[in-house]
Protein backbone atom coordinates (compact mmCIF):
# COMPACT_ATOMS: atom_id res chain seq x y z
CA UNK A 1 0.00 0.00 0.00
CA UNK A 2 2.88 2.34 -0.58
CA UNK A 3 2.39 5.12 -3.06
CA UNK A 4 3.61 4.05 -6.47
CA UNK A 5 6.52 6.39 -6.88
CA UNK A 6 6.96 7.53 -10.47
CA UNK A 7 10.68 7.53 -11.04
CA UNK A 8 10.97 7.24 -14.80
CA UNK A 9 8.17 9.36 -16.15
CA UNK A 10 7.53 8.32 -19.70
CA UNK A 11 5.53 11.40 -20.63
CA UNK A 12 7.35 14.59 -21.52
CA UNK A 13 6.17 16.96 -18.86
CA UNK A 14 4.26 19.89 -20.26
CA UNK A 15 3.33 22.94 -18.27
CA UNK A 16 2.36 22.35 -14.65
CA UNK A 17 -1.30 21.26 -14.66
CA UNK A 18 -2.41 23.00 -11.49
CA UNK A 19 -1.40 26.62 -11.04
CA UNK A 20 -1.56 28.42 -7.73
CA UNK A 21 -5.05 29.63 -6.95
CA UNK A 22 -5.37 33.34 -7.61
CA UNK A 23 -7.69 35.85 -6.00
CA UNK A 24 -9.81 35.55 -9.10
CA UNK A 25 -10.28 31.84 -8.47
CA UNK A 26 -11.25 32.65 -4.92
CA UNK A 27 -13.83 35.17 -6.05
CA UNK A 28 -15.28 32.73 -8.54
CA UNK A 29 -15.40 29.97 -5.95
CA UNK A 30 -17.20 32.26 -3.52
CA UNK A 31 -19.29 33.96 -6.16
CA UNK A 32 -22.52 34.17 -4.24
CA UNK A 33 -21.05 35.74 -1.13
CA UNK A 34 -18.86 38.14 -3.09
CA UNK A 35 -21.87 39.07 -5.14
CA UNK A 36 -24.05 40.02 -2.19
CA UNK A 37 -21.10 41.82 -0.57
CA UNK A 38 -20.60 43.94 -3.68
CA UNK A 39 -24.30 44.65 -3.81
CA UNK A 40 -24.41 45.59 -0.14
CA UNK A 41 -21.46 47.91 -0.54
CA UNK A 42 -23.07 49.52 -3.59
CA UNK A 43 -26.31 50.15 -1.70
CA UNK A 44 -24.42 51.71 1.19
CA UNK A 45 -22.40 53.89 -1.16
CA UNK A 46 -25.51 54.99 -3.02
CA UNK A 47 -27.38 55.98 0.11
CA UNK A 48 -24.32 57.73 1.50
CA UNK A 49 -24.19 59.87 -1.62
CA UNK A 50 -27.91 60.43 -2.02
CA UNK A 51 -28.92 61.08 1.58
CA UNK A 52 -27.43 63.18 4.31
CA UNK A 53 -28.12 60.99 7.29
CA UNK A 54 -27.34 57.53 6.08
CA UNK A 55 -23.70 57.40 7.07
CA UNK A 56 -24.14 58.83 10.56
CA UNK A 57 -23.47 56.67 13.55
CA UNK A 58 -26.96 57.06 15.06
CA UNK A 59 -28.51 55.85 11.82
CA UNK A 60 -26.12 52.95 11.39
CA UNK A 61 -26.72 51.88 14.98
CA UNK A 62 -30.45 52.21 14.40
CA UNK A 63 -30.31 49.95 11.37
CA UNK A 64 -28.40 47.31 13.27
CA UNK A 65 -30.74 47.58 16.22
CA UNK A 66 -33.79 47.31 13.99
CA UNK A 67 -32.37 44.33 12.22
CA UNK A 68 -31.27 42.38 15.30
CA UNK A 69 -34.30 40.04 15.24
CA UNK A 70 -33.87 39.57 11.51
CA UNK A 71 -30.16 38.79 11.85
CA UNK A 72 -30.64 36.32 14.68
CA UNK A 73 -33.47 34.44 13.01
CA UNK A 74 -31.75 34.49 9.64
CA UNK A 75 -28.63 32.90 11.12
CA UNK A 76 -30.78 30.10 12.54
CA UNK A 77 -32.73 29.81 9.29
CA UNK A 78 -29.44 29.31 7.46
CA UNK A 79 -29.03 26.05 9.35
CA UNK A 80 -32.60 25.00 8.56
CA UNK A 81 -32.37 25.79 4.87
CA UNK A 82 -28.94 24.21 4.55
CA UNK A 83 -30.40 20.88 5.68
CA UNK A 84 -32.87 21.28 2.82
CA UNK A 85 -35.67 22.26 5.18
CA UNK A 86 -37.65 25.41 5.82
CA UNK A 87 -39.27 26.97 8.87
CA UNK A 88 -42.37 29.04 8.16
CA UNK A 89 -43.42 29.23 11.81
CA UNK A 90 -40.85 31.71 13.08
CA UNK A 91 -43.02 34.82 12.64
CA UNK A 92 -45.72 33.14 14.68
CA UNK A 93 -43.30 31.99 17.37
CA UNK A 94 -42.04 35.56 17.57
CA UNK A 95 -45.60 36.79 18.06
CA UNK A 96 -46.41 34.12 20.63
CA UNK A 97 -43.28 34.85 22.64
CA UNK A 98 -43.88 38.59 22.49
CA UNK A 99 -47.47 38.25 23.72
CA UNK A 100 -46.76 35.54 26.23
CA UNK A 101 -43.85 37.38 27.80
CA UNK A 102 -45.93 40.54 28.10
CA UNK A 103 -48.71 38.51 29.71
CA UNK A 104 -46.34 36.78 32.11
CA UNK A 105 -44.68 40.04 33.11
CA UNK A 106 -48.10 41.47 33.77
CA UNK A 107 -48.83 38.50 36.02
CA UNK A 108 -45.72 39.45 37.98
CA UNK A 109 -43.41 36.66 36.84
CA UNK A 110 -39.81 37.88 37.33
CA UNK A 111 -38.18 38.91 34.10
CA UNK A 112 -35.21 36.52 34.08
CA UNK A 113 -37.63 33.62 34.49
CA UNK A 114 -39.75 35.00 31.66
CA UNK A 115 -36.73 35.01 29.37
CA UNK A 116 -35.77 31.46 30.26
CA UNK A 117 -39.35 30.25 29.88
CA UNK A 118 -39.72 31.97 26.53
CA UNK A 119 -36.51 30.51 25.12
CA UNK A 120 -37.63 27.09 26.33
CA UNK A 121 -41.02 27.64 24.75
CA UNK A 122 -39.45 28.48 21.38
CA UNK A 123 -37.15 25.48 21.63
CA UNK A 124 -40.06 23.21 22.52
CA UNK A 125 -42.16 24.32 19.58
CA UNK A 126 -39.12 23.76 17.38
CA UNK A 127 -38.58 20.30 18.85
CA UNK A 128 -42.20 19.41 18.28
CA UNK A 129 -42.05 20.45 14.65
CA UNK A 130 -38.62 18.89 14.25
CA UNK A 131 -39.99 15.59 15.50
CA UNK A 132 -42.54 15.40 12.71
CA UNK A 133 -39.99 16.47 10.14
CA UNK A 134 -37.00 14.40 11.23
CA UNK A 135 -38.57 11.30 12.74
CA UNK A 136 -41.84 11.07 10.85
CA UNK A 137 -40.54 12.28 7.52
CA UNK A 138 -43.29 14.83 6.84
CA UNK A 139 -42.16 17.69 4.58
CA UNK A 140 -40.92 20.67 6.58
CA UNK A 141 -43.04 23.03 4.51
CA UNK A 142 -46.26 21.35 5.61
CA UNK A 143 -45.28 20.91 9.25
CA UNK A 144 -44.15 24.48 9.75
CA UNK A 145 -47.06 25.88 7.76
CA UNK A 146 -49.37 24.11 10.17
CA UNK A 147 -47.15 25.45 12.96
CA UNK A 148 -47.48 28.98 11.59
CA UNK A 149 -51.24 28.70 11.81
CA UNK A 150 -51.47 27.01 15.20
CA UNK A 151 -48.86 29.10 17.00
CA UNK A 152 -50.27 32.43 15.88
CA UNK A 153 -53.70 31.13 16.81
CA UNK A 154 -52.47 30.46 20.33
CA UNK A 155 -50.96 33.94 20.51
CA UNK A 156 -54.30 35.37 19.44
CA UNK A 157 -56.10 33.29 22.03
CA UNK A 158 -53.77 34.44 24.82
CA UNK A 159 -54.02 38.11 24.01
CA UNK A 160 -57.62 38.01 22.92
CA UNK A 161 -56.35 40.25 20.18
CA UNK A 162 -55.34 42.98 22.60
CA UNK A 163 -51.77 44.13 22.67
CA UNK A 164 -50.39 43.75 26.15
CA UNK A 165 -48.23 46.62 27.40
CA UNK A 166 -44.96 46.00 29.16
CA UNK A 167 -44.15 48.44 31.93
CA UNK A 168 -41.34 50.59 30.57
CA UNK A 169 -39.72 50.44 34.00
CA UNK A 170 -39.28 46.67 33.71
CA UNK A 171 -35.71 45.50 33.13
CA UNK A 172 -37.25 43.40 30.38
CA UNK A 173 -37.52 46.35 28.02
CA UNK A 174 -33.83 46.96 28.58
CA UNK A 175 -33.14 44.01 26.29
CA UNK A 176 -34.76 45.86 23.46
CA UNK A 177 -33.70 49.39 24.25
CA UNK A 178 -30.56 49.59 26.38
CA UNK A 179 -27.26 50.98 25.20
CA UNK A 180 -24.06 49.34 26.39
CA UNK A 181 -20.70 50.99 25.69
CA UNK A 182 -22.44 53.24 23.22
CA UNK A 183 -23.92 50.30 21.35
CA UNK A 184 -27.51 49.15 21.36
CA UNK A 185 -27.91 45.95 23.36
CA UNK A 186 -29.96 44.17 20.65
CA UNK A 187 -27.07 44.76 18.26
CA UNK A 188 -24.60 43.30 20.74
CA UNK A 189 -26.81 40.24 21.24
CA UNK A 190 -27.16 39.83 17.51
CA UNK A 191 -23.43 40.04 16.87
CA UNK A 192 -22.75 37.49 19.61
CA UNK A 193 -25.30 35.12 18.10
CA UNK A 194 -23.84 35.56 14.64
CA UNK A 195 -20.35 34.76 15.84
CA UNK A 196 -21.60 31.62 17.56
CA UNK A 197 -23.59 30.66 14.49
CA UNK A 198 -20.54 31.13 12.27
CA UNK A 199 -18.38 28.96 14.48
CA UNK A 200 -20.95 26.20 14.80
CA UNK A 201 -21.66 26.26 11.09
CA UNK A 202 -18.08 26.28 9.87
CA UNK A 203 -15.90 24.95 12.64
CA UNK A 204 -17.97 22.34 14.46
CA UNK A 205 -19.17 18.86 13.60
CA UNK A 206 -22.77 19.95 13.85
CA UNK A 207 -22.48 22.44 10.99
CA UNK A 208 -20.66 19.86 8.91
CA UNK A 209 -23.53 17.40 9.34
CA UNK A 210 -26.08 20.09 8.61
CA UNK A 211 -24.42 20.71 5.25
CA UNK A 212 -24.07 16.98 4.66
CA UNK A 213 -27.73 16.32 5.34
CA UNK A 214 -28.66 18.93 2.78
CA UNK A 215 -26.26 17.48 0.23
CA UNK A 216 -27.00 13.79 0.71
CA UNK A 217 -28.85 12.84 3.87
CA UNK A 218 -28.59 9.14 3.15
CA UNK A 219 -24.80 9.40 2.82
CA UNK A 220 -24.58 11.09 6.19
CA UNK A 221 -26.82 8.45 7.73
CA UNK A 222 -24.64 5.75 6.21
CA UNK A 223 -21.64 7.39 7.82
CA UNK A 224 -23.24 6.39 11.12
CA UNK A 225 -24.47 9.84 12.07
CA UNK A 226 -27.82 10.30 13.74
CA UNK A 227 -29.25 12.50 11.03
CA UNK A 228 -32.66 12.62 12.62
CA UNK A 229 -31.38 14.12 15.83
CA UNK A 230 -29.33 16.66 13.90
CA UNK A 231 -32.36 17.62 11.85
CA UNK A 232 -34.53 17.96 14.93
CA UNK A 233 -31.90 20.16 16.59
CA UNK A 234 -31.92 22.51 13.66
CA UNK A 235 -35.58 23.28 14.28
CA UNK A 236 -34.95 23.66 18.00
CA UNK A 237 -32.31 26.26 17.18
CA UNK A 238 -34.67 28.01 14.82
CA UNK A 239 -37.45 28.06 17.42
CA UNK A 240 -35.15 29.43 20.08
CA UNK A 241 -33.80 32.10 17.75
CA UNK A 242 -37.36 33.16 16.94
CA UNK A 243 -38.09 33.31 20.66
CA UNK A 244 -35.03 35.49 21.27
CA UNK A 245 -36.16 37.73 18.41
CA UNK A 246 -39.58 37.94 20.03
CA UNK A 247 -38.08 38.91 23.39
CA UNK A 248 -35.99 41.65 21.82
CA UNK A 249 -38.91 42.94 19.80
CA UNK A 250 -41.31 42.96 22.76
CA UNK A 251 -38.73 44.83 24.78
CA UNK A 252 -38.22 47.33 22.00
CA UNK A 253 -41.93 47.84 21.31
CA UNK A 254 -42.77 47.81 25.00
CA UNK A 255 -45.74 45.64 24.19
CA UNK A 256 -46.62 42.13 23.20
CA UNK A 257 -49.07 41.67 20.39
CA UNK A 258 -50.18 38.73 18.34
CA UNK A 259 -49.85 41.11 15.41
CA UNK A 260 -46.05 41.14 15.51
CA UNK A 261 -43.88 39.32 13.05
CA UNK A 262 -46.42 39.03 10.25
CA UNK A 263 -44.53 38.01 7.16
CA UNK A 264 -41.33 37.84 9.22
CA UNK A 265 -40.64 34.32 7.94
CA UNK A 266 -40.61 35.50 4.35
CA UNK A 267 -38.28 38.38 5.15
CA UNK A 268 -35.91 36.02 6.93
CA UNK A 269 -35.95 33.43 4.16
CA UNK A 270 -35.36 36.20 1.64
CA UNK A 271 -32.30 37.40 3.56
CA UNK A 272 -30.89 33.88 3.69
CA UNK A 273 -31.48 33.15 0.02
CA UNK A 274 -30.18 36.56 -1.01
CA UNK A 275 -27.01 35.70 0.89
CA UNK A 276 -26.41 32.71 -1.33
CA UNK A 277 -27.73 29.78 0.69
CA UNK A 278 -29.48 27.29 -1.57
CA UNK A 279 -33.10 26.36 -0.90
CA UNK A 280 -32.20 22.89 -2.13
CA UNK A 281 -29.88 22.37 0.78
CA UNK A 282 -26.21 21.49 1.03
CA UNK A 283 -24.90 24.99 0.44
CA UNK A 284 -25.11 27.56 3.19
CA UNK A 285 -23.16 30.57 4.30
CA UNK A 286 -23.54 32.56 7.50
CA UNK A 287 -21.53 35.50 6.16
CA UNK A 288 -23.81 35.62 3.14
CA UNK A 289 -26.85 35.56 5.38
CA UNK A 290 -25.56 38.47 7.44
CA UNK A 291 -24.95 40.46 4.26
CA UNK A 292 -28.35 39.48 2.91
CA UNK A 293 -30.13 40.58 6.08
CA UNK A 294 -28.23 43.84 6.29
CA UNK A 295 -28.99 44.55 2.66
CA UNK A 296 -32.71 44.14 3.27
CA UNK A 297 -32.47 46.40 6.32
CA UNK A 298 -30.35 49.05 4.60
CA UNK A 299 -32.68 49.20 1.61
CA UNK A 300 -35.67 49.79 3.88
CA UNK A 301 -33.83 52.47 5.83
CA UNK A 302 -32.14 54.17 2.89
CA UNK A 303 -35.25 54.54 0.76
CA UNK A 304 -37.04 56.33 3.59
CA UNK A 305 -34.00 58.55 4.14
CA UNK A 306 -34.06 59.31 0.42
CA UNK A 307 -37.67 60.49 0.84
CA UNK A 308 -38.97 57.90 -1.58
CA UNK A 309 -42.73 57.96 -2.02
CA UNK A 310 -44.24 54.99 -0.21
CA UNK A 311 -46.06 54.05 -3.39
CA UNK A 312 -42.76 53.70 -5.20
CA UNK A 313 -40.88 51.98 -2.39
CA UNK A 314 -41.97 48.41 -3.16
CA UNK A 315 -41.32 48.92 -6.85
CA UNK A 316 -37.88 50.35 -6.31
CA UNK A 317 -36.92 47.79 -3.67
CA UNK A 318 -37.84 44.86 -5.87
CA UNK A 319 -36.17 46.33 -8.93
CA UNK A 320 -32.94 47.16 -7.15
CA UNK A 321 -32.65 43.64 -5.77
CA UNK A 322 -33.34 42.05 -9.12
CA UNK A 323 -31.05 44.27 -11.14
CA UNK A 324 -28.20 44.08 -8.68
CA UNK A 325 -28.35 40.30 -8.34
CA UNK A 326 -28.54 40.06 -12.07
CA UNK A 327 -25.47 42.22 -12.65
CA UNK A 328 -23.59 40.21 -10.10
CA UNK A 329 -24.59 36.94 -11.71
CA UNK A 330 -23.33 38.29 -14.98
CA UNK A 331 -20.02 39.37 -13.49
CA UNK A 332 -19.47 36.18 -11.56
CA UNK A 333 -21.19 33.92 -14.01
CA UNK A 334 -18.22 31.58 -14.03
CA UNK A 335 -18.92 30.88 -10.41
CA UNK A 336 -22.45 29.79 -10.98
CA UNK A 337 -22.37 27.87 -14.21
CA UNK A 338 -19.35 25.73 -14.64
CA UNK A 339 -20.23 24.08 -17.86
Amino acid at each position, binding site marked *: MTAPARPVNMHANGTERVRKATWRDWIMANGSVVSIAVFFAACCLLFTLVTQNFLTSPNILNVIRQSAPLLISAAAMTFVITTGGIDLSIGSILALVASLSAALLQLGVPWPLVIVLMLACGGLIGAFQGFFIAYEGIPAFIVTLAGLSVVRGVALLITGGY*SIPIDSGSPFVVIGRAWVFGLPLPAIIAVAMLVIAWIVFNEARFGRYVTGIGANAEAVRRAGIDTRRTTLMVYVISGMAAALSGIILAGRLG*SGSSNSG*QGFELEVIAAVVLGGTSLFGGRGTIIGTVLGALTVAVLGNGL*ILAHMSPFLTPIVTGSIILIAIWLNFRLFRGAIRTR
Partner: protein
Amino acid sequence: DTLALVTINQQALFFNQINDGAKEAAKAAGVDLVIFNANNVPSAQNDAIETYITQKVDGIILVAIDVNGVKPAITEAKKAGIPVVAIDAQIPDGDNAAFIGVDNTAAGEEIGKFYADYVKTEMGGTAKIGVIGALNSFIQNQRLDGFKKAVADSGANVTFVDTVDGQNVQDVALGAAENLMTANPDMTTLYATGEPALIGAVSAVDSQGRTGDVKVFGWDLTAQAVKGIDEGWVTAVVQQDPAGEGKAAVEALVKLKKGESIEPVINIPVTIVTKDNVDQFRGMFQ
Protein backbone atom coordinates in the same frame (compact mmCIF):
# COMPACT_ATOMS: atom_id res chain seq x y z
CA ASP B 1 -81.50 33.38 15.86
CA THR B 2 -77.95 33.49 14.59
CA LEU B 3 -76.05 36.58 13.53
CA ALA B 4 -72.69 36.44 11.78
CA LEU B 5 -69.94 39.01 12.13
CA VAL B 6 -67.33 39.12 9.37
CA THR B 7 -64.28 41.04 10.46
CA ILE B 8 -60.92 42.06 8.97
CA ASN B 9 -58.42 40.66 11.43
CA GLN B 10 -58.00 40.09 15.11
CA GLN B 11 -54.62 41.63 15.46
CA ALA B 12 -55.79 45.18 15.90
CA LEU B 13 -57.41 45.94 19.23
CA PHE B 14 -60.08 47.89 17.39
CA PHE B 15 -61.65 44.85 15.78
CA ASN B 16 -61.59 42.86 18.97
CA GLN B 17 -63.44 45.62 20.73
CA ILE B 18 -66.09 45.47 18.01
CA ASN B 19 -66.33 41.73 18.63
CA ASP B 20 -66.63 42.24 22.37
CA GLY B 21 -69.36 44.86 22.04
CA ALA B 22 -71.28 42.72 19.59
CA LYS B 23 -70.97 39.60 21.74
CA GLU B 24 -72.30 41.39 24.76
CA ALA B 25 -75.23 42.86 22.88
CA ALA B 26 -76.02 39.46 21.36
CA LYS B 27 -76.06 37.89 24.77
CA ALA B 28 -78.36 40.59 26.05
CA ALA B 29 -80.70 40.10 23.11
CA GLY B 30 -80.58 36.32 23.38
CA VAL B 31 -79.23 35.63 19.91
CA ASP B 32 -76.21 33.63 18.80
CA LEU B 33 -73.25 35.43 17.31
CA VAL B 34 -70.65 33.74 15.15
CA ILE B 35 -67.51 35.55 14.07
CA PHE B 36 -65.38 35.05 10.99
CA ASN B 37 -61.89 36.51 10.73
CA ALA B 38 -60.80 37.13 7.12
CA ASN B 39 -57.17 37.72 8.04
CA ASN B 40 -56.91 40.72 5.72
CA VAL B 41 -57.92 38.72 2.62
CA PRO B 42 -60.72 40.57 0.80
CA SER B 43 -62.11 37.59 -1.10
CA ALA B 44 -62.28 35.55 2.10
CA GLN B 45 -64.96 37.98 3.29
CA ASN B 46 -67.05 37.22 0.22
CA ASP B 47 -66.53 33.51 0.70
CA ALA B 48 -67.71 33.76 4.28
CA ILE B 49 -70.78 35.84 3.45
CA GLU B 50 -71.76 33.38 0.72
CA THR B 51 -71.34 30.54 3.15
CA TYR B 52 -73.50 32.27 5.72
CA ILE B 53 -76.13 32.82 3.04
CA THR B 54 -76.31 29.10 2.28
CA GLN B 55 -76.57 28.52 5.97
CA LYS B 56 -79.40 31.09 6.18
CA VAL B 57 -78.19 33.12 9.14
CA ASP B 58 -80.54 35.88 10.28
CA GLY B 59 -78.24 38.83 9.79
CA ILE B 60 -74.67 39.73 8.91
CA ILE B 61 -72.41 42.37 10.37
CA LEU B 62 -69.55 43.28 8.09
CA VAL B 63 -66.30 45.15 8.63
CA ALA B 64 -65.24 45.40 5.00
CA ILE B 65 -61.70 45.35 3.67
CA ASP B 66 -62.48 46.07 0.02
CA VAL B 67 -65.64 48.18 0.16
CA ASN B 68 -66.40 47.69 -3.52
CA GLY B 69 -65.53 44.03 -3.60
CA VAL B 70 -68.07 42.97 -1.00
CA LYS B 71 -70.99 44.54 -2.82
CA PRO B 72 -72.02 41.46 -4.83
CA ALA B 73 -72.07 39.34 -1.71
CA ILE B 74 -74.17 41.94 0.09
CA THR B 75 -76.57 41.98 -2.83
CA GLU B 76 -76.81 38.20 -2.69
CA ALA B 77 -77.59 38.38 1.00
CA LYS B 78 -80.26 40.96 0.43
CA LYS B 79 -81.84 38.75 -2.23
CA ALA B 80 -81.84 35.88 0.23
CA GLY B 81 -83.59 38.11 2.74
CA ILE B 82 -80.59 38.46 5.04
CA PRO B 83 -79.91 42.03 6.15
CA VAL B 84 -76.28 43.22 6.24
CA VAL B 85 -75.04 45.98 8.50
CA ALA B 86 -71.66 47.50 7.69
CA ILE B 87 -69.44 48.76 10.47
CA ASP B 88 -66.36 50.96 10.30
CA ALA B 89 -66.25 51.20 6.51
CA GLN B 90 -69.23 52.42 4.50
CA ILE B 91 -70.12 50.58 1.31
CA PRO B 92 -70.54 53.03 -1.58
CA ASP B 93 -74.04 52.50 -3.04
CA GLY B 94 -74.22 49.21 -1.22
CA ASP B 95 -77.26 47.06 -0.58
CA ASN B 96 -76.51 46.96 3.11
CA ALA B 97 -79.36 47.80 5.43
CA ALA B 98 -77.32 50.22 7.44
CA PHE B 99 -73.90 51.65 8.12
CA ILE B 100 -72.70 52.17 11.62
CA GLY B 101 -69.43 53.91 12.27
CA VAL B 102 -67.31 56.87 11.78
CA ASP B 103 -67.25 59.05 8.73
CA ASN B 104 -63.54 58.60 8.35
CA THR B 105 -62.99 61.49 5.98
CA ALA B 106 -64.92 63.82 8.26
CA ALA B 107 -63.16 62.58 11.36
CA GLY B 108 -59.86 62.93 9.52
CA GLU B 109 -60.77 66.53 8.87
CA GLU B 110 -61.71 66.95 12.52
CA ILE B 111 -58.33 65.82 13.81
CA GLY B 112 -56.73 67.83 11.01
CA LYS B 113 -58.44 70.94 12.21
CA PHE B 114 -57.47 70.19 15.80
CA TYR B 115 -53.91 69.72 14.64
CA ALA B 116 -53.83 72.97 12.70
CA ASP B 117 -55.18 74.86 15.66
CA TYR B 118 -52.56 73.27 17.89
CA VAL B 119 -49.83 74.30 15.49
CA LYS B 120 -51.11 77.84 15.41
CA THR B 121 -51.51 78.21 19.16
CA GLU B 122 -48.72 76.05 20.55
CA MET B 123 -46.07 75.85 17.83
CA GLY B 124 -45.96 79.36 16.49
CA GLY B 125 -47.89 78.48 13.36
CA THR B 126 -45.27 76.37 11.60
CA ALA B 127 -44.66 72.67 11.74
CA LYS B 128 -43.21 69.80 9.78
CA ILE B 129 -45.19 66.61 9.85
CA GLY B 130 -44.45 63.01 8.96
CA VAL B 131 -47.17 60.44 8.36
CA ILE B 132 -47.28 56.76 9.23
CA GLY B 133 -50.05 55.31 7.15
CA ALA B 134 -51.41 51.97 6.00
CA LEU B 135 -51.60 52.19 2.25
CA ASN B 136 -53.50 48.94 2.05
CA SER B 137 -56.36 50.23 4.20
CA PHE B 138 -59.14 52.08 2.38
CA ILE B 139 -60.39 53.97 5.41
CA GLN B 140 -56.96 54.88 6.67
CA ASN B 141 -56.30 56.49 3.32
CA GLN B 142 -59.51 58.47 3.83
CA ARG B 143 -58.27 59.58 7.23
CA LEU B 144 -55.10 60.89 5.67
CA ASP B 145 -56.97 62.66 2.86
CA GLY B 146 -59.34 64.33 5.32
CA PHE B 147 -56.49 65.35 7.55
CA LYS B 148 -54.51 66.87 4.71
CA LYS B 149 -57.52 68.76 3.42
CA ALA B 150 -58.30 70.33 6.79
CA VAL B 151 -54.68 71.31 7.34
CA ALA B 152 -54.50 72.91 3.91
CA ASP B 153 -57.77 74.76 4.49
CA SER B 154 -56.58 76.06 7.84
CA GLY B 155 -53.80 78.12 6.29
CA ALA B 156 -51.29 76.97 8.90
CA ASN B 157 -47.74 76.73 7.66
CA VAL B 158 -47.44 72.95 7.73
CA THR B 159 -45.02 70.99 5.57
CA PHE B 160 -45.77 67.33 4.96
CA VAL B 161 -42.35 65.73 4.82
CA ASP B 162 -42.74 62.01 4.14
CA THR B 163 -45.41 59.39 4.34
CA VAL B 164 -44.21 55.89 5.25
CA ASP B 165 -46.16 52.66 4.98
CA GLY B 166 -46.62 50.82 8.27
CA GLN B 167 -48.76 48.20 6.50
CA ASN B 168 -51.06 48.00 9.54
CA VAL B 169 -48.45 45.88 11.37
CA GLN B 170 -46.83 47.15 14.59
CA ASP B 171 -43.24 46.16 14.02
CA VAL B 172 -43.25 47.30 10.41
CA ALA B 173 -44.67 50.63 11.54
CA LEU B 174 -42.03 50.91 14.24
CA GLY B 175 -39.09 50.46 11.88
CA ALA B 176 -40.62 52.79 9.33
CA ALA B 177 -41.29 55.44 11.97
CA GLU B 178 -37.72 55.28 13.26
CA ASN B 179 -36.35 55.70 9.78
CA LEU B 180 -38.81 58.51 9.12
CA MET B 181 -37.41 60.41 12.07
CA THR B 182 -33.82 59.84 10.99
CA ALA B 183 -34.67 61.04 7.53
CA ASN B 184 -36.23 64.23 8.87
CA PRO B 185 -34.35 65.40 11.94
CA ASP B 186 -36.25 68.67 11.85
CA MET B 187 -39.67 67.03 11.89
CA THR B 188 -41.78 68.29 14.77
CA THR B 189 -45.02 66.32 14.49
CA LEU B 190 -46.25 62.86 13.55
CA TYR B 191 -49.62 61.63 12.35
CA ALA B 192 -50.53 57.92 12.55
CA THR B 193 -53.69 56.80 10.77
CA GLY B 194 -54.53 53.68 12.78
CA GLU B 195 -53.76 51.58 15.79
CA PRO B 196 -50.68 49.63 14.67
CA ALA B 197 -49.24 52.78 13.14
CA LEU B 198 -49.75 54.71 16.35
CA ILE B 199 -48.16 52.01 18.50
CA GLY B 200 -45.19 52.00 16.14
CA ALA B 201 -44.97 55.78 16.21
CA VAL B 202 -45.12 55.95 19.98
CA SER B 203 -42.43 53.29 20.46
CA ALA B 204 -40.24 54.98 17.87
CA VAL B 205 -40.44 58.43 19.41
CA ASP B 206 -39.65 56.87 22.75
CA SER B 207 -36.74 54.77 21.52
CA GLN B 208 -35.20 57.60 19.51
CA GLY B 209 -35.32 59.86 22.52
CA ARG B 210 -37.41 62.41 20.66
CA THR B 211 -40.20 62.74 23.22
CA GLY B 212 -38.97 66.27 23.86
CA ASP B 213 -39.34 67.61 20.34
CA VAL B 214 -41.89 65.52 18.45
CA LYS B 215 -45.63 65.70 19.10
CA VAL B 216 -47.71 62.73 18.11
CA PHE B 217 -51.24 62.74 16.72
CA GLY B 218 -53.11 59.69 15.65
CA TRP B 219 -55.94 57.21 15.80
CA ASP B 220 -56.95 54.55 18.33
CA LEU B 221 -55.93 54.56 21.96
CA THR B 222 -53.77 51.89 23.46
CA ALA B 223 -51.95 51.67 26.78
CA GLN B 224 -48.80 53.04 25.16
CA ALA B 225 -50.70 55.99 23.71
CA VAL B 226 -52.31 56.77 27.06
CA LYS B 227 -48.88 56.82 28.65
CA GLY B 228 -47.65 59.21 25.96
CA ILE B 229 -50.59 61.49 26.61
CA ASP B 230 -49.80 61.47 30.30
CA GLU B 231 -46.21 62.38 29.56
CA GLY B 232 -47.33 65.13 27.26
CA TRP B 233 -45.78 64.15 23.93
CA VAL B 234 -48.78 62.38 22.51
CA THR B 235 -51.03 65.33 21.93
CA ALA B 236 -54.28 64.00 20.58
CA VAL B 237 -55.73 60.65 19.61
CA VAL B 238 -58.96 60.08 17.75
CA GLN B 239 -60.86 57.50 19.70
CA GLN B 240 -63.71 55.67 18.07
CA ASP B 241 -66.15 53.59 20.01
CA PRO B 242 -65.65 50.17 18.45
CA ALA B 243 -67.51 48.32 21.19
CA GLY B 244 -70.39 50.73 20.76
CA GLU B 245 -70.37 50.11 17.02
CA GLY B 246 -70.53 46.36 17.54
CA LYS B 247 -73.34 46.77 20.01
CA ALA B 248 -75.29 49.11 17.76
CA ALA B 249 -74.95 46.72 14.84
CA VAL B 250 -76.40 43.80 16.77
CA GLU B 251 -79.20 45.94 18.10
CA ALA B 252 -80.00 47.19 14.60
CA LEU B 253 -80.25 43.65 13.25
CA VAL B 254 -82.45 42.58 16.14
CA LYS B 255 -84.73 45.52 15.45
CA LEU B 256 -84.96 44.63 11.76
CA LYS B 257 -85.84 41.08 12.67
CA LYS B 258 -88.68 42.37 14.79
CA GLY B 259 -89.90 44.32 11.79
CA GLU B 260 -88.90 47.68 13.12
CA SER B 261 -87.08 50.11 10.91
CA ILE B 262 -83.61 51.53 11.41
CA GLU B 263 -81.61 54.52 10.26
CA PRO B 264 -79.58 53.72 7.12
CA VAL B 265 -76.57 55.63 8.46
CA ILE B 266 -75.79 55.67 12.13
CA ASN B 267 -72.82 57.90 12.66
CA ILE B 268 -70.95 57.15 15.82
CA PRO B 269 -69.14 60.28 16.85
CA VAL B 270 -65.45 60.20 17.62
CA THR B 271 -63.74 61.72 20.59
CA ILE B 272 -60.47 63.53 20.34
CA VAL B 273 -58.63 62.34 23.39
CA THR B 274 -56.16 64.73 24.98
CA LYS B 275 -54.65 65.22 28.41
CA ASP B 276 -57.92 66.83 29.47
CA ASN B 277 -60.25 63.91 28.85
CA VAL B 278 -57.92 60.91 28.88
CA ASP B 279 -59.03 59.81 32.34
CA GLN B 280 -62.39 58.59 31.13
CA PHE B 281 -60.67 56.07 28.79
CA ARG B 282 -57.98 54.95 31.18
CA GLY B 283 -60.14 52.15 32.51
CA MET B 284 -60.06 50.32 29.17
CA PHE B 285 -56.35 49.67 29.36
CA GLN B 286 -55.64 48.31 32.79
